[in-house]
């Protein structure tokens, strides 16, 4: 009953919003030659790396920023758009005002509301100066003619009109507050994390309308079928995170926690090109959100009880398949001393672990980075499930995961969770 009432209220709000926001004005095209100061463009490049724009706006093996990358959401597939300065298919005809409106209000130059898969709920907090630098950077990229693919959204999510209501409910345009009791580095980190780097977009859970739940900020969320772990005190990581370990992780790899995989890998790859102090600022801020008084009590589990070892076929599979690299005490490069150090082993669901086993880890071409072979063709679903279950039992004090076998099937078929 309450649900029905809420829904009616929501629809009423939508209708009201539709009235107010039914049309946004089109901002006229601008096709003049633009020029920017080199240091502004350079700064814009660093900011674009801090916002890892390229990771959503570049298709696999595609031209940078030319769009076309599919992003699976619970509402359907949304494609990253072409943000190169091509006037026809990209944003070449966008004025600075049009760019600002997209970043701040989630409205494109033609006046259409944008889906919040583009995280303007974070970018709205960017300073004018930073927006200017980003604009300068993007407008000086190679113009690539690439038509944006049509989004594949089910009714009613394909109605952009709804987005106006969504914004009314959820778009908080207040700037990131400055905490005078904290260091400049911390405040810089807060700004980057909350605005440009939009960490919450993946690491904060979303409600059924796809909005980040304010009360559960950085409690852990979703990204492309992966679990995005909490970046606050709810983190189940058995190894305390410090500024140093976060910095190591964000820059390359940390011996206490391992390295970024899945959708986080391109983030870390992009941060390689960012000035060290910005990465340190992010690390300082996230370290403060993660910290909790009981950190010193944390320890890495390793329950090699006879029951776990004897009852599980997983134990034998682990010894045969995984141990060659993962039972060497961290001797093999990019392995941590114990798999129990990986946060994913302690997560609420087994998806990340399954992803890595099935698809492996490959570093970008020619770069130093972890290589793990894909076991999709070596192990069958039941064997993967046995290994996953064994890893959880041995290395985590959390309850055994349910539905491991189903998740294995879904990850193998590259489906997202229901």
């Amino acid at each position: 009953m309450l649900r029905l009432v809420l829904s009616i209220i929501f629809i009423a709000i939508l209708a009201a919003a539709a009235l107010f926001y039914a049309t946004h004005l089109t901002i006229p095209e601008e096709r003049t030659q633009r020029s920017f100061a080199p240091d502004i463009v350079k700064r814009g490049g660093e900011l674009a790396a801090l916002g890892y724009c390229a990771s959503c706006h570049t298709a696999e093996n595609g031209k940078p920023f030319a769009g076309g990358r599919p992003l699976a959401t619970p509402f359907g597939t949304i494609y990253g758009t072409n943000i190169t300065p091509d006037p026809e298919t990209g944003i070449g005809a966008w004025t600075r005002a049009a760019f600002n409106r997209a970043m701040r209000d989630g409205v494109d130059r033609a006046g259409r509301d944008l889906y919040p898969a583009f995280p303007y709920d974070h970018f709205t907090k960017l300073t004018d100066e930073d927006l200017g630098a980003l604009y300068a950077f993007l407008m000086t990229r190679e113009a690539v003619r690439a038509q944006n693919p049509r989004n594949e959204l089910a009714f009613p999510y394909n109605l952009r009109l709804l987005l106006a209501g969504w914004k009314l409910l959820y778009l908080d345009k207040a700037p990131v507050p400055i905490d005078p009791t904290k260091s400049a580095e911390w405040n810089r980190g807060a700004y980057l994390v909350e605005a440009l780097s939009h960490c919450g977009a993946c690491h904060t859970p979303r409600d059924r309308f796809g909005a980040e739940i304010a009360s559960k900020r950085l409690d852990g969320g979703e990204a492309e079928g992966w679990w995005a772990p909490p970046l606050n005190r709810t983190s189940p990581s058995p190894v305390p995170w410090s500024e140093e370990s976060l910095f190591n992780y964000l820059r390359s790899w940390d011996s206490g926690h391992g390295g970024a995989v899945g959708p986080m890998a391109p983030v870390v790859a992009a941060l390689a090109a960012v000035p060290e102090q910005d990465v340190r600022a992010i690390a300082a801020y996230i370290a403060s959100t993660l910290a909790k008084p009981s950190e010193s009590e944390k320890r890495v589990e390793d329950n090699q009880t006879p029951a776990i070892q004897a009852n599980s076929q997983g134990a034998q599979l682990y010894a045969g398949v995984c141990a060659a690299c993962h039972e060497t005490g961290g001797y093999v490069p990019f392995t941590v001393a114990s798999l129990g150090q990986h946060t994913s082993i302690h997560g609420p669901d087994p998806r990340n672990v399954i992803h890595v086993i099935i698809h492996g880890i490959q570093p970008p071409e020619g770069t130093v980075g972890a290589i793990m072979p894909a076991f999709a063709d070596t192990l069958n679903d039941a064997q993967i499930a046995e290994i996953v279950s064994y890893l959880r039992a041995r290395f985590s004090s959390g309850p055994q995961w349910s539905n491991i076998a189903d998740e294995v099937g879904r990850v193998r078929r590259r489906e997202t969770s229901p």
Partner: protein
Amino acid sequence: MNAPLVTPSRRDFLAGALVVSFSLRSLSSFAAEEQQSPKPPLPGSLKNALMLDAWIRVDADGTVTVFTGKCEIGQGIRTALIQVAAEELEVEARAIHLVTADTVRTANEGFTSGSNSMKDSGAAIRNAAAQVREILIGIAAERIGVAADQLHAQSGAIVGPGNRRIGYGELVAGEVLHAAAQPASRLKTPEALRVIGQSMPRVDIPGKVTGGVSYVQDLRLPNMVHARIVRPPSYEARLQSLDPSAIEKLPGVLKIVRDGSFLGVIAEREFQAITAAHALAAAAKWDSATKLPDEKNIFGFIESLPGQDYIIADKHAPSGAAAQTLEAVYRRPYQLHGSIGPSCAVASFDGDALTVWSHAQGMFPLRKAIAEMLHFAEDKVRCIHMEGAGCYGHNGADDAGADAALLARALPGRPVRVQWTREQEHQWEPYGPAMLSRARASLDASGNIVDWQYDVRSNTHSTRPPGAGQLLAARHLEQPFKPDAPKPIPQPEGGGDRNSIPLYAVPNVRVVHHFVPDMPLRVSAHRSLGAYLNVFSIESFMDELATAANADPVEFRLRHMQESRARKVISTAAERFGWSSTPLPRGRGRGFAFAQYKNLGAYCAVAIEAEVEHESGRVRLGRAVAAVDSGQAVNPDGIANQIQGGVVQSASWTLYESVRFEPTRILSQDWSTYPILRFGNVPESVDVHVIDAPGQPFLGTGEAAQGPAAAAIANAVAHATGMRIRDLPLNAARVKAAIGV
């Protein structure tokens, strides 16, 4: 497959030893004779073994066996040498049995290195074969009673008037081929050649693609056991303590061998040895005194080390006045050989004598080193070459041979196979040394080079045996052997200064080799030695000069090149590539480079297209075209294969490779910490044009392409981006840093 698959019997061993001592005796008598009446020099390696039957034997049943002291290391030498022998002997190639380096059976031809195999062994075998053919014709002439000029050799027989045929087997009674080689041979004329110059399929490939016993890794001797070595965590670390008692009880473990800091375990089965080695590694306690320099400042560190200067070129001639002067510094980091198959060896000790099967490049030097290490007489050690994975220079092969020798001595009667791990190969092989060069040149008003000053600073490029101290295990023993004092390899071949003298016609040239004896990291011969950096430097600099002279890079090279064969190679590559100055789309560039390897070997020019992704700095390789003149081409497809491989291998070195280290240890331990080229980024195509030079001497080809390919890529990147990068490798981060936002 020539290597015996059974343990050689004592009798075989003695028979071999007799051959050796006999050859030595004949060597000394011949040498004495030679001193009295000087003769013209013998071709190729004939001077290393003066008797024809040291190279070629014909059995009574007509079987032809050819002996080479060189090794097949993936360069296809086995096939090329068979072709040479078949040509002059007039026998079918498939009827020839080729024996490669074996200290009992073959001549001592030193190392198979420096692209010298065709020049050394090819020439020796060709001349020996021609002389054998003439001897057989002579015998047949006597037997039939006709003049020799009425006879000819054909398909393993001497054929005379009336089609009378006498098989070689019938002519070789006694020791007719035990005759001293002569300086001059009746070689077939270029027009008469029917095997040389043909792209004969490689004799080893069918076995390799169907699972034959092709490598020392595949050698299975009766009763053979398996071993693994446990190495220290770093160069200088010493074994402090070890309680092996639990490991000795592991399944299959036969013996734990410890001598100082040398530690190995032998087990019945391979996986048992692996399991025991892991346990052994966990149980061993090491100290660590290793102090490596700061990787970020490695070139500053190398420059701070004392050096010995060798002025290797200093010529002066009148020239035009300098209108502009350019100067540039080029650097190359430590780079790995990185064999795909880590080093391996098998050794067998019968309580008296030791046999080692090894994929090292020099069996005689290895024998000497192992004998010294074990305090054995040299004739108690036999080294037999078997192929390994491609080595590209001095990798862990010799060291694995020493490991196997130490372990086999500890377990007489059981052949021991020792296989290095990937991590051991990466951490312990001797790297190609980090080097730097400084080039300075002036152009006159019309864009001609008038003076050229070039300085190259480098460690040695050979720490190979025969000194026992060159073997890794020997340094770790309780009574350690000290490495030999490093020495530069003299010109004209050169080591760090290989190819440092430009082949271009410049009136004033001064080249100085600053030899740095102290080696912060273990280094040795890495394919093409210093030529890789020197050609990269000179050919990058030529492009920089061409730009300053406002000239096309190919035209600028031809303008300064007088040697006709070099000119032909340059113009052929340019023509086949379709070299032009038409502008390319944004981000694309073309590059060109040339060198004659060692200024003595094959001439090679490479043209390549590259595309640079502006946002990432990632370099993608497009079309590549190479032209090569290897002298008389014995196997054109074999030459093409070497050049194609050289271009692709060099692309990997040039785009990605650099050994990483920190003060206490080497960080490059596997392919994740030392990434190399994968299929995703190989060039679109690599076309090779072999320019035949009939009647000309064979010129080494195996290392001809690496330097030119590196410079061609760098020139293409410079053309694509407008930025000149002088530090290798040209990885995405470095290129991006150069081109900026």
